């Protein structure tokens, strides 16, 4: 009985939690409600993914209104995986938020904070699960509005400016997406993604479809921070409260990538996107430039949160690179990296959250000599950094491996070589931090700090352990990613 309604519970649980969080005046209670919502959503995501892996594509007519008139939720391997990432990270980061947020956010605003937090989570899950094009826009705006509010709650005053800038750019991106969806509706008369996929092949030559494709591509690229549309991202990540950075860095760009995958492969179809418009030719150079320049820029950042934010843009480049191959291996690599990057960046930002809790700064000078004072936090950061570089036995290695395989399969050995070369750039920027942390002389402030409390370390290490676990035994993730890639290339969702 309950199992049949899992897709609805997935969305309703965090949505209800959001409303309840705002109503209660006690910060611990509102956290408890948020946690309950996140755990329920995670349980639903696990249930959905296990059913999908059993070979069943789930279709759920919301409110009993059959598609294409009603809104339909559809789950296959692709969004099953995305749901699992978002809900899983949601639980871990909510656990982390309890202690971290009390330090960084104004006491009176904490219930409101959790309200926005759950809205953000609800929106992200909604984008992933829905099978209706306009519904994607609605959930996108729900999650974005939540994110703007969350970023603005950062303790640095620059958080306000970066939230405003993100709001402007995010809204333009969302408007582009609505225009694209509108043009598709005009041309086909349906908003259901599966119906769109069926009706579009007959209309491939139409100018309207081409324009819709362009608007959707640019709008989504803005949301996922594809170079050169990434300018909102570094400051937004750098000045948001630590827990918020952990949440949005690990989930929101990933969900935007999912939207891109859905439109490119399921709705428009690989023959239109990649054969007719040769999209790969456009995405490939953008991805390479993103990887190369953003890794370089990251090397020169002295605010470590901002450094990791630039590195995020570079990592998005790797995902887009995998997509640009439009092959099973390439898409497997992209989907894997979607999952793996969420794990590594989540872990890294949470480790920085621990530093922020104790030291009150994530500037590189503030981190000097912390290796002896906060050994567990810094071990977590180092492990996460190794994963980011792509050292064997970590998840980073698995996704780089598939990416290189994908490049070689296309006969693009220079691209494969570049992937390896740019990994050394990651070595440089991670090493800078590791050097300062373990070999630097501690500043007066750093000398007096102690290890972060267990309530922060446990979620951080949970993600690190996931990094190592899925790096050593990648069978589950590669299976799902492979199934997802084949589902995307197979056409129908």
């Amino acid at each position: 009985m309950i199992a049949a309604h899992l897709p609805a519970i997935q969305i309703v649980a965090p949505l209800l939690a959001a409303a309840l969080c705002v109503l209660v005046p006690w910060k611990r209670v509102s956290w408890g409600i948020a946690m309950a919502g996140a755990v329920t959503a995670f349980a639903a995501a696990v249930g959905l993914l296990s059913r999908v892996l059993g070979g069943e594509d789930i279709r759920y007519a919301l409110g009993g209104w059959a598609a294409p008139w009603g809104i339909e939720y559809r789950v296959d391997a692709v969004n099953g995986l995305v749901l699992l990432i978002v809900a899983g990270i949601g639980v871990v980061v909510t656990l982390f938020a309890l202690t971290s947020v009390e330090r960084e956010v104004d006491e009176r605003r904490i219930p409101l904070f959790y309200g926005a937090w759950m809205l953000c989570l609800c929106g992200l899950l909604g984008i992933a699960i829905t099978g209706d094009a306009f519904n994607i826009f609605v959930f996108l705006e729900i999650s974005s509005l939540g994110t703007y509010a969350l970023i603005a709650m950062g303790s640095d005053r620059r958080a306000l400016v970066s939230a405003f800038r993100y709001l402007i750019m995010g809204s333009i991106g969302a408007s582009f997406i609505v225009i694209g969806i509108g043009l598709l509706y005009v041309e086909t008369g349906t908003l259901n993604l599966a119906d769109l996929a069926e009706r579009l092949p007959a209309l491939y030559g139409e100018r309207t479809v081409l324009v819709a494709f362009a608007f959707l591509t640019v709008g989504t690229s803005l949301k996922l921070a594809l170079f050169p549309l990434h300018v909102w991202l570094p400051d937004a990540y750098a000045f948001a409260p630590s827990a918020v950075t952990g949440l949005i860095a690990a989930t929101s760009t990933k969900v935007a990538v999912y939207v891109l995958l859905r439109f490119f492969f399921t709705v428009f179809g690989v023959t239109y996107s990649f054969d007719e418009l040769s999209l790969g030719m456009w995405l490939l150079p953008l991805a390479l430039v993103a990887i190369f320049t953003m890794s370089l820029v990251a090397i020169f950042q002295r605010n470590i949160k901002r450094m990791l934010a630039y590195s995020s843009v570079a990592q998005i480049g790797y995902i887009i690179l995998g997509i640009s191959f439009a092959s099973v291996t390439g898409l497997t690599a992209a989907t894997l990296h979607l999952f793996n990057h969420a794990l590594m960046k989540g872990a890294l930002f949470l480790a920085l959250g621990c530093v922020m809790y104790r030291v009150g700064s994530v500037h590189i000078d503030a981190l000097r000599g912390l290796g002896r004072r906060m050994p567990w936090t810094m071990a977590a950061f180092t492990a996460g950094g190794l994963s980011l570089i792509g050292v064997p036995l970590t998840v980073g290695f698995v996704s780089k491996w598939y990416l290189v395989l994908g490049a070689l399969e296309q006969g693009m050995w220079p691209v494969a070589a570049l992937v390896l070369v740019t990994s050394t750039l990651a070595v440089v920027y991670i090493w800078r931090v590791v050097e300062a942390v373990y070999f630097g002389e501690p500043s007066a402030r750093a000398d007096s700090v102690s290890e972060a409390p267990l309530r922060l370390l446990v979620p951080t290490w949970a993600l690190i352990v996931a990094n190592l676990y899925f790096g050593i035994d990648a069978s589950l993730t590669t299976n799902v990613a492979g199934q997802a890639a084949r589902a995307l290339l197979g056409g129908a969702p």
Partner: protein
Amino acid sequence: MEFPGLFNYWVVIFLMMVGFYALISRGNLVKKVVGLNLFQTSVIIFYVSTGKIVGGTAPILIEDDHGVAGGAAEVLYSNPLPHVLMLTAIVVGVATMAMALALVVRIKETYGTIEDDEIQEQVLADELQEGARP
């Protein structure tokens, strides 16, 4: 191509570009927000225009002579779906606008100005102080 046929769409493009221009060129944050709102409004007009059919009536089923709802043949209805979608988009637009203005208020409280370049100066000063850009 008869002139009034595409008139709505020209208005849409005009409004969109006006909004976009204001968004980019104005340094005043409130003017930026107004530009953004114009931009979003143009999308609303676009959707509503697509639902209109010349000679179409409101989509309420019209009874035929025997009183059967929807029985009347050859009645042209306008498409209600884009209008309904835009109700949602209007709500989203209002929420975005409220959020943006709330941020502007907070920025004014913290920085004492809502001019982009003056805020940038202070942000730069913050960064120098922090040593972010040595």
